């Protein structure tokens, strides 16, 4: 009981802190989607905390309902990370957005399918756990995919987005794993009650560290069309040489 209260208070306090950091120097204008999500977290978790203290009868129902909304709103963070890493004005966005959009759609279908197949599970425990798990897994994959793609193309991430993405991804993936374990074995539920909120508190802590200084993603360096043309010529020459070697 005491531990739960301490974790809840710490979470709300850290959410207030991250909201204050976003409001300071008008960071919320840059990271609008993240700001909306943090605002939701603060409102949702404060309401939950008060219901836990004063209306324990409705707490459980409220918790799962807010968790369902949270699962959907988490996509705001995913989208924030993507749009900051590959800004709409960049050529990389124009080149990759279609392909990545198809992959994202495929992942969403996968999440829906795994959630649907939940009905086939032998032991019925919680539909909310399955929702959280299916979409959390996909969200973690999307964040990891964005980070890996950025690294592949040499796109640098500033401290703000890097910290937000890594902490969020780590939290969502640990949440996926612990959710599955809790559904697998009910004895794990007692750990799950502490592990999930604790990892959430760590995530918010990392967000505060990430937002402490304004360090946005540096603009993507784009080659001149002349350089790209030169590269295309070199590439074609290399390919034709390789073909000649292979088929003398």
């Amino acid at each position: 009981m005491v531990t739960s209260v301490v974790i809840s208070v710490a979470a709300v306090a850290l959410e207030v802190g991250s909201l204050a950091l976003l409001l300071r120097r008008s960071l919320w204008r840059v990271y609008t989607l993240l700001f909306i999500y943090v605002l939701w977290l603060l409102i949702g978790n404060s309401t939950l905390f008060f219901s836990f203290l004063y209306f324990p009868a409705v707490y459980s129902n409220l918790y799962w309902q807010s968790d369902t909304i949270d699962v959907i709103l988490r996509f705001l963070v995913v989208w924030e990370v993507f749009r900051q890493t590959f800004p709409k004005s960049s050529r990389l966005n124009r080149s990759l957005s279609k392909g990545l959009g198809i992959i994202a759609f495929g992942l969403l279908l996968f999440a829906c399918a795994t959630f649907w197949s939940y009905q086939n599970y032998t032991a019925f425990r919680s539909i909310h756990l399955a929702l959280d798990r299916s979409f959390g897994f996909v969200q973690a994959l999307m964040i990891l995919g964005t980070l890996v793609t950025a690294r592949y193309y040499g796109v640098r991430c500033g401290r703000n987005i890097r910290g937000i993405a890594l902490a969020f991804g780590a939290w969502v993936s640990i949440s996926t794993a612990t959710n599955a374990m809790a559904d697998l074995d009910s004895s794990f539920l007692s750990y799950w009650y502490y592990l999930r909120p604790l990892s959430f508190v760590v995530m918010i802590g990392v967000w505060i560290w990430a937002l402490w200084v304004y360090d946005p993603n540096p603009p993507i360096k784009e080659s001149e069309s002349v350089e790209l043309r030169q590269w295309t010529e070199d590439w074609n020459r290399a390919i034709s040489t390789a073909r000649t070697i292979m088929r003398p």
Partner: protein
Amino acid sequence: MINLILFAILGLALFGSFIFVALQGSLKSLPDSSAVRAVTSIINLEGSSFANARRLLDDTDYQVLCSNPDLRRLAERHRNDRRQLALTWISLLQGDLITLWRFRRFLIQQGVPSSVKEELGTLQALVLSLVLLNLIRLSIRTVGPFALPRATRQAGQLVDSMSKGAALVLGRIPAAGWAEIERSWVKSAA
């Protein structure tokens, strides 16, 4: 059941991946290609401009000469010549490194922003590179130029990375100011 086990495993694997990405650190910023070109035009890098290191350290000719007993002495002379050339090249590379370091110091002196961490990192890279080049030099003197061809060839890359470091600092000032930097550098070097 299998779904749950898979989710538990994949969730942990994803968590591990995020930790791995976090530990890898962020990408180092690469210098602008025009800044790299500017550095090589401002500073005359004699050692790294030598493109035939592979040929210099190739022992094919030496082996051919050695295969003929009548040409053994000629082979020895050829080996000594190559040794001298390789030592000269290494000396030039060491000179390049020191020039690049001096140029970087000059840029900071001129007011180009840098951090203590960056400066210490550069100094560390310089010391390690010089130590490595001296070891290669020692190996060329003792066991000849053909013993460690790969390590010797890669010595040139030390200068390249140092050159990129200097270009990164130069890239922090507008390209319009590079001509002035070059003039001041020439004046200070004279």
